[in-house]
């Protein structure tokens, strides 16, 4: 009886040790698997996020600036995601960012040139305004003598009294229609006669001494 009891106790011990050993090993294996699964899920999420962001950049649906887009593509590249689609999208996104940058650069250059042209025209306009004002003074002179004095002053700006004066009567579809060409003297006397100046200096050519050699006016209807 005593012998049997001893045998049963030993058997119990063996069973317990086995159960503990087997149970412990199973639990360790589950934890590793879980960690691996979690890592795989995180990686998949990262890949999905990368694909989403890259597609948004390529399709121009993101709210990011060009610099922010460039940074995001660089970050994704640095992640070294082992996914062929991501690699392909990175290349496409880099091209798109480069294209957008070139577009921005082109627009900035166009804007710079536009401002430069505007400034040039402003400078010309103010130069032309001197002439416009002289012509207005002739048209608005209170007497023939006063108008003649103004004409003499104005003629000093021309290289000769016979300088051609061209009057544009319409500018449609890139075609300039002109009135019959006249001369500086005749035009200035015309202003004196009709007593109105309904023109605007459009352009002028000058010689080395700055005297006008050709004047182009736009008729204001």
């Amino acid at each position, binding site marked *: 009886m005593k012998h049997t009891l001893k045998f049963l106790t030993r058997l119990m011990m063996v069973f317990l040790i086995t159960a503990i050993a087997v149970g412990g090993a199973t639990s360790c294996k589950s934890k590793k698997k879980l960690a691996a699964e979690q890592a795989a899920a995180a990686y998949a999420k990262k890949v999905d996020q990368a694909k989403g962001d890259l597609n948004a950049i390529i399709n121009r649906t993101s709210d990011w600036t060009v610099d922010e887009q460039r940074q995001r593509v660089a970050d994704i590249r640095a992640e070294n995601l082992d996914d062929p689609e991501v690699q392909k999208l990175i290349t496409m996104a880099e091209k798109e960012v480069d294209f957008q940058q070139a577009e921005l650069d082109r627009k900035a250059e166009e804007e710079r040139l536009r401002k430069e042209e505007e400034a040039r025209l402003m400078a010309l306009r103010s130069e032309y305004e001197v002439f416009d004002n002289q012509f207005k003074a002739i048209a608005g002179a209170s007497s*023939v003598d006063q108008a003649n004095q103004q004409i003499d002053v104005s003629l000093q700006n021309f290289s000769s009294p016979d300088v051609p004066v061209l009057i544009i009567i*319409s500018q449609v579809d890139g075609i300039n229609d002109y009135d019959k060409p006249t001369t500086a003297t005749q035009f200035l006397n015309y202003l004196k*006669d009709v007593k109105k100046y309904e023109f605007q200096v459009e352009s002028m050519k000058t010689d080395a001494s700055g005297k006008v050699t050709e004047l182009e006016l736009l008729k204001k209807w």
Partner: protein
Amino acid sequence: MKKIAYLLILVFGFGITGAFAQDNLSPERKQAVDSLALEKVRDLSKYISIIGNKETPWSEANRVIDRAEELFMQGSEMGVSSLNRTEINYYSVRNYFERLMRLNYNKVEIDWYNIEYVSDLQRQPDGTYVGVITIFQRFRGYDKEGKLVYQDTTKKDITVYVKRKETQIGGRLIGFWDVLLGDIRVKETTI
């Protein structure tokens, strides 16, 4: 034979229409040409007023006569009427301006108003645009006491010719519209 004739008319008819259509001006450009011709008539009214004004210095009046004459086609005539006679006299424009300068009044006022087209500029086969502009002229003559001794209002029709021409200026070919006035005919004269 008749059928062939009709066919030829049809073919050439469309051909001619097509050629004209190519030369047709856009409405915007035509508008500018219309306005230019009206402007020349307004210029003439200013010149007539200056020439007739007794206060205009002789040299100025002669200069303006030259400018005014340049507005006309060669050989154009100006009709002159009076309430004191039934007939209308026609003078060459130069003769008219010189007579106007020497009118026997102490002061003369001439105003043109209601200047407008009665017949729009129409393109002719030779490319010239021809139209008729009507004007009303109010004439007042005063004696040396400043008393109004004669006045009338005359309706006149002016034929206008506009042709596209080209000239070289500074090495550039300039296409311009040459507006010339023709005869000025008296239509009616009233007080």
